[in-house]
């Protein structure tokens, strides 16, 4: 009788310990606050060839489709390209 009670107690403690809602979860979940510090990742520059060249910004980029930002507003063509999205 004592042994089953002890097992139940241990299981209950484990369940309660695992359901600590105040503990911060690291996994990102949409809609939940993301309060981590900003991070910026870059690879090392020895793989970058001619990185310092072509920074004048005057060269015409190739023709591209209409670029829109995350809110759907049109972004005027500029020296940089890319895309925007939201989820």
């Amino acid at each position, binding site marked *: 009788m004592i042994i089953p009670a002890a097992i139940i107690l241990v299981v209950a403690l484990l369940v309660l310990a695992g359901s600590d809602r105040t503990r911060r979860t690291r*996994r990102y979940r949409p809609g939940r606050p993301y309060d981590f510090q900003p991070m*910026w990742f870059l690879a090392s520059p020895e793989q970058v060839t001619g*990185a310092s060249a072509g920074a004048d910004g005057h*060269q015409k980029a190739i023709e591209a489709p209409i670029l829109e*930002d995350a809110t759907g507003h049109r972004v005027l063509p500029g020296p940089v390209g890319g895309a925007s999205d939201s989820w």
Partner: protein
Amino acid sequence: MTAGDLGKTAEISHEQPLTALTKPGGDTLVADPEELGPNAVLDGPFTTRQLLRLDEALRMADRQTGLTFSVYIGELVAPSRETAEKLHKQIDGSARAVLIAVSPNQRKLEIVTGHEARKRISDRDAKLAGLSMAAAFAGGDLAGGILSGIDQLASHAGRH
């Protein structure tokens, strides 16, 4: 600290604070795992394994394409596009740089390509990669979405 503050600080010091690397020319996580610091790893949204995969993906993308791939994760001050472009300009050789800026709180994603990189990765290619990434983010897979985005953008850029 917001991205705006980040930009102001960077303009003053000409460095990139709050990055995973101390500077764009610093060692990668693989080369020097101590560079990131144990607390930074533990406090971030990624596991160490995910960080190493991200680092490897960036290095592979750089090596294969000759472009500079970069990932920013954090708040993007509105208008987010302009903020992302400002961050992109801070990268050495920004003409050949590709920045993936993700704001999980705002649920916004910005991909910025420099004018040289744009010749290899068209805006349409970037949009396709962005759609794929946004789908992963919507499912809560932050690391997977970023890795997928880097892979797609590098594939579109092709080998140099």
